Each structure stands twice: as C-alpha cells, then as structure tokens.
C-alpha cells in the first residue's frame, strides 16, 4: 500500500490527527537536522499500521493523539530495526584503499590540523575521560547545547555545567599530553 492509499482509507478525523502529529515530528526533526526521508518513513509506517488496524481496533476510529503517539513509537522502532537489518545484509566492508590514497606518504608537520589525525586524537582523548563526564563532552562537541544534555539525562543545569566543565578540563589535559594545545580564548 502506498502512502496516499493508506491515507485515503483513514477517517478524516484520524487522518487529520496523523497529519498534525506528522507535522510536529517534522518540526522537531528539523531542530535535530534529521533527514526528512527518515521521518517520512516513520509516518508512512504509522499510516499503514493505522490502516491495517482499521476495523479491528476501536481506537483507530478515533482521532486519538495518544494512540497515534504509541503507534509512532513502535513504528519508529521497527523502522530502525529494519534499517539495521538491511545494513547487516549489505555487508559493506570498509576498505583501506581510499584512506591510504588520501593519506600523505610522509608525515606532514601541519597534517595534524587537517582533519583525520586531529579527529582521531580527539576521539582517543575522549575515551580516557571519566565515564560520568564523557557523554556530556561528546554531546558538547557534537554540537548539542547544554540544555539538551541536561534534558536528555534529567540533570539540573548546575550538574550539567559541572560535569561538562570537568570533562572538558580532562580533555584539555589529555590533548596537551598529545601536544595539542587548546585555545580557549575563542570559546
């Protein structure tokens, strides 16, 4: 069944509620810079599930946001499981070839700043940070604001700030051991 076909068979009220939910998911998804096609896949799965449940569930006849939310939650899990399964089937090995082609044949004194080497050193340094502080540092470097770190872990602002401050201090120390100075004046 296509996206459009599934939609045609949903009641107006239900379809309106699904559309409203889908619009909200998109709105939030944009905040997280998600690919719209990922969200489309979830909402298509929601519509198909609601269509399949039509006539077998009393709730599906209602414009029930809670029901749509629960359907979307399980649909999202199934979409992720399917995607992982497809990835496993693809057996997409990472070849060494392209990397060696891009790598400089001899050490470049400025190469450390050119992406991969610095990235590797940063990643290795993060791995040595205390477990309690590490996720906050990862989120910070991945671009998440402090409020989101607090929200995801259920921490207070003070606790988040403290863990992040200490975690970044740890990182600075580890990087210094690797000969990488961290210019904090810009941040």
């Amino acid at each position: 069944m296509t996206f459009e076909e599934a939609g045609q068979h949903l009641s107006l009220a239900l379809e309106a509620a699904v559309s409203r939910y889908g619009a909200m998911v998109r709105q939030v998804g944009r905040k997280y810079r998600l690919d719209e096609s990922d969200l489309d896949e979830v909402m298509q799965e929601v519509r198909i599930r609601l269509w399949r449940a039509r006539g077998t569930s009393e709730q599906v006849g209602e414009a029930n946001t809670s029901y749509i939310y629960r359907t979307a939650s399980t649909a999202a899990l199934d979409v992720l499981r399917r995607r992982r399964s497809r990835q496993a089937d693809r057996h997409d090995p990472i070849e060494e070839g392209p990397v060696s082609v891009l790598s400089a044949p001899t050490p470049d004194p400025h190469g450390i700043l050119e992406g991969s080497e610095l990235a590797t050193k940063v990643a290795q340094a993060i791995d040595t940070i205390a477990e309690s502080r590490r996720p906050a540092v990862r989120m910070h470097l991945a671009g998440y604001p402090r409020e989101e770190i607090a929200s995801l872990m259920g921490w207070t602002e003070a606790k988040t700030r403290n863990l992040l401050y200490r975690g970044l201090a740890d990182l600075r120390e580890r990087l210094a051991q690797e000969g990488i100075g961290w210019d904090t004046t810009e941040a």
Partner: protein
Amino acid sequence: MGHDGGVKVTEAQLKEAYQAHLARSRTDRASCPAPEVIQALVRRVGNEATRLATLDHVMGCGECRTELDLLRSVEEAGVRLGAVRAAGRRRWMMPAALAATVLLAVGLGRVALEPSGDTMRSGDATGVVLVAPGAEVPAGAPVSFAWHPVEGASRYRLEVLNQSGDVAIEAETRDTALTSGSAASLAPGSYQWWVIALSPAPGPRSELRRLRVVTP
C-alpha cells in the same frame, strides 16, 4: 598555530574534528544498543549508570546518534501534542485528559499549524466551503448536506463526528450534495461535520462545522 613544538586548536576546530570523526566512523552495528535501549534513554527509563553508558555509545556513533534524534522527534512530538508527559514525568494520560486530546484533535481546523511538507494536508479552512445544513436539524429525519465544488476533486467524503470525536456517519459521493438517511438515527445532541475533497488522494477539506440534532 604552532605551540611549543605542538599545535594549538580552537574549540570550534575541536568540534569540527569530532563531528568529522563521527561522520567517518563506522561502527559494527552488532555492538550498538538495541533501538529499545535508545528509546529508554530518550524516555529516561532505567538507572542513570545504564543511561550514561548508552548515551556514551550513542554520542560516539554517528548512526546511533541519528537514531536517537529520530526517536527524540517522535517522543517530543507526543509531548508537545499532549499525548504523553515529558521524560522523567511519564504517565499515560487519564481518560478525562484523553477526551480533551480527542476534542483538541477534532478541532484541528481552527489550529494554525506551521506549513509542512506532509503529503496529507492538515485542516484547511479555505478548502471545501460548506453550504447546508444550518446549525440545527431535527432528530429522526434524513439530513441533506451540501458544499461548493472544488477544482480537481473527483469525489467528496463527508464525516459526521460525535462529541467524542468518533465518526458517527461516513459517506462518499461524486456530487456536491448528499442526503444521509443514516442521519435520521442520530440521537439528539451535538455533532460536528466536515467534507474532504478527494482527487483521489485526500485534498482540501472544509472547516469543522457544528451540527445540533434537536428533538422536533
């Protein structure tokens, strides 16, 4: 950039390097936490040590991070629409609150939503223009519904909803008028009705209009 024989980087460069590392890194997915475990993290279910360990992996794995954000989007949409409480304060809504949610959903036609790329359109009060009936109809008699045509529509679907938002009457027609015999069986009370244009995919719809069935 040089600094005592080493290098000096800014925080922006560190972030850029880390994000590039995330984009390049390929994890053996077999070692990734199951989607349910990531969902538990989003919902703040489980002890903090477990959630920290999950978050640590997720934030170091580009693919798990995308999965986290997708699950967060679904969750946050539910919270914003009142279907569920925010993480850490989760409890399924009570029936009375559910009824309010249903009424909220039914009243979509009046809610101004941010434009979206959804294939299915949300409430569109400028779509189908309703003509008849008026605000009240007598109980026990068929009801004639009418609306203005919409360009490109091949059919129209009429729905009458009861106070709970359930569909009490559903009918389709190629015409712009429909006399519903089923309406004669509607109990006295308040209802709402609307019409959606089909082409054949669902297109513009009408506003949600009140209809009171009264004892003659």
